[in-house]
């Protein structure tokens, strides 16, 4: 069978498995939410509402139905692409996701860019002299940034650059005194498209601190991954062969070693993107960034079942998508991969 057909077969099997995985995740979230202590009616009405009012609302929201019936409705709606309405304010869950997901993606992608540039630069810097000072500093940087507690780092950075120096805003996604750009929900993109420099500067100013913090915290992973892989590759036979043919060290590193050392980094990037979509919670909370993780945390607190279920399913779908894409990319780029 040709490699292309193998690749397509592999892609097909991954895509076929995706709905099963999503169904499992959706079922798990549905059950866990109902097992967890706490009642959405309490979150909506408070504990002092009369029983009649509580019952009426429970009935109105369909929470009085037996669990299998609720599960059936949930799955039937899910198949139709209907994620339901938020219990707290009747907003369609898809609308809530449409509002908050771009914020998370914008933050995540910028952070990833910073992490990749910073991490790869640090990882690459010590390669000339392994075990030298620069290499040691890079190693310490990798471990240090990875070990930093995110909330602590975020608060310290916020305190220094926003409160003490006053260079950048403390939090939020856009200046209070300006109207946010309309469009896709990606403010950088929307303000660029609108050609409005004030909006662009406003979006950038608010993005700098959270994206830098997140990027800094993630850069250690990239630095360490690149450093280790590059060292391994530089000891491999084909690199030795290249050297023995008289190629310059720069050419050996850049043309022969680096592309191979970057392949595992690509996998790490995929995993990082996936975790960033829903995992930047502490950064979002610290910087009041209205992203999907922040929204999920609030929805859990309010026991807003449809919203929690909807966000988890959408995030899970994105994670699956990113993971399949990265797998395919690696498979295309690395001919050694077998299926």
């Amino acid at each position, binding site marked *: 069978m040709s490699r292309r057909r193998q690749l397509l077969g592999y892609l097909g099997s991954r895509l076929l498995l995706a709905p099963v995985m999503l169904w499992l995740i959706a079922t798990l979230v549905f059950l866990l939410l109902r097992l967890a202590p706490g009642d959405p009616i309490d979150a909506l009405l408070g*504990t002092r509402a009369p029983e009649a009012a509580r019952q009426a609302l429970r009935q109105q929201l369909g929470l009085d139905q037996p669990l299998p019936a609720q599960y059936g409705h949930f799955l039937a709606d899910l198949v139709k692409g209907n994620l339901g309405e938020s219990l707290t304010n009747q907003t369609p869950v898809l609308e809530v996701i449409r509002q908050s997901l771009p914020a998370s993606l914008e933050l995540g992608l910028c952070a990833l860019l910073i992490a990749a540039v910073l991490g790869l630069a640090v990882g690459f810097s010590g390669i000339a002299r392994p075990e030298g000072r620069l290499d040691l500093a890079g190693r310490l940087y990798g471990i240090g940034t990875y070990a930093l507690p995110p909330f602590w780092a975020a608060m310290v950075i916020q305190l220094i650059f926003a*409160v003490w120096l006053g260079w950048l805003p403390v939090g939020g996604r856009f200046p209070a005194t300006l109207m946010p750009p309309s469009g896709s929900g990606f403010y950088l993109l929307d303000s660029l498209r609108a050609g409005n420099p004030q909006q662009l500067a406003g979006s950038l*100013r608010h993005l700098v601190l959270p994206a830098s913090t997140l990027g800094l915290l993630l850069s250690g992973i990239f630095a360490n991954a690149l450093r280790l892989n590059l060292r391994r590759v530089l000891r491999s036979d084909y690199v030795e062969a290249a050297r023995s043919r008289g190629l310059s060290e720069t050419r050996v590193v850049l043309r022969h070693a680096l592309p191979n050392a970057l392949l595992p980094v690509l996998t790490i990037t995929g995993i990082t993107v996936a975790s960033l979509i829903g995992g930047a919670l502490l950064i979002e909370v610290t910087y009041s960034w209205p992203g999907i993780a922040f929204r999920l945390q609030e929805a859990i607190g309010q026991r807003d079942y449809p919203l929690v279920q909807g966000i988890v399913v959408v995030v899970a779908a994105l994670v699956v998508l990113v993971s399949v894409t990265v797998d395919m990319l690696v498979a295309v780029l690395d001919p050694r991969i077998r299926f």
Partner: protein
Amino acid sequence: MKRLRTVSLLAILMGALLGCQPQGPGGRLVVGSRTRIDSVDPAATYSFGALQLISAIGDPLYVIDAKGQLEPRLATALPRLSPDRLTAWVPLRQGVRFHDGTRFDAAAMVFTLERFLAIGKLSYLLGDRIVSVRASGSHELELKLRRPFTALPQMLSAVSLTPLSPTAYRSHDKRFLNDRFVGTGPYKLTFFADQQQRLEPFNDYWGERPANKGLDLVNLSNSTALYGAMRSGEVDVLLSTSLEGDQQLSLHQDAQRGRLLEGVGPALEIGYLTLLSDQPPLKNPLVRRAIAHSLDHELISQRVTHGLRPPLRDLVPPSLSGSEPTAWPAYDPAQARRLFEQAGYCRGRTLNLPFTFRSNIPADKLFALIWKEQLRRDLGDCIVLEVSGMESTTAYRQLGEGAFASILLEWMGDYPDADNYLQPLLGCNKAVGYRCLEGPSAASGSFWTRPGLNEELLLSQSLEGSERIELLRRLQRDTAAAAPYIPVWLVAPRAWAQASLSTPVFDGSGRVVLSQLQQRPAASRPAP
């Protein structure tokens, strides 16, 4: 050369980015608070932040002024009552327009109240008291009451009942309209996002125009960010909702030094302990009274809140009529010891009392730790506090199941009236002797009642004048003697403004009057 050019370009870009703090048009103010607002529909929301916003863009029928006096707003006088006090007629202001130009009249008010009764999250507050509403004239509202209700004007001062334009809400009479608001208030809502709202003065407002040229409200998700935004000048005015104690103290001290201006509103939120009164060991009233005597209110207030939350020995805030400021006993460890001894504790037998605090509220945790140590110091051989934390949503769910021997909670009435503090804690629909089986007392986790208490509470809702005040005070003295609850502290809302502004002023419902915020002339500002 090329490298130098790139570096210079980058430096200019960074400088522009860091230096260009966007400025709003002169006279507009930025107001920061913590609560994220996910709906601006009065039927959908009752969070403090949302009601603060609605109070600026809507007008209720009545307001309570800073001195606690009731004042007609969209009503023109207090309700006129039928001889049996079961029908009330409210005269409405004429010449008022909604933000969309629709005329405000009795039909609009009927639409608003009926919509609230149909879909309002707190519809039971109205439904418990009002049977029906109708327009008895073009500008007269008729309310049929279930029973005589003295605090009707106070209830009608609730921001949740602010009139809505029937034209704008026609298609949302059975659904929430979350991101738009069309009322009659001094401001129009021109932009709404859950983290940012923009208010512009309403040109056709019937009353006094706002003193500022508009407001930008921002909601930051954590206390440190808000504090930082105030210190860095990013926000002009900061509302204290959920700001942590240390940061409140720091801003309070800044205000004392003249760097900021501080406004303090009426203290309408109470912090109190609930004791599970239908299960041993707290079933014994002697033990509950001993605990009431053992609490060093002053120490707790100072250590936990630096005195910003004054001690409270009353379930009704002192600013409301019917309060009894010394109903609960003062700190008296000797008396506490005597009561514990009578109950069979001390001298080798220690009461191990489980105490739950809400783990997501920093002041609660601090209270738990300090009270535990205070008890160890004063009555270590009689009582030991077993402290544990629980996230608040989970705690509320389990409260009515009798899961907590003792827990610290807080409460703020939906409108400022004594009834709104006693009924939600003491009301009981079904009881056996001193044990409440169903109703507010059970839902509050104390399960305490006494024969005749519920009837007296209902009576207090219909009595007037000194007779009512005397009954409310007696109810509190009786409750204090049984001690199913122990009031702990009183929480007053605070707001801080930059020194160049006017001091924030609160109304009698504990909300900042946003329309009065303004820049002060340079001559009247304090010297730096």
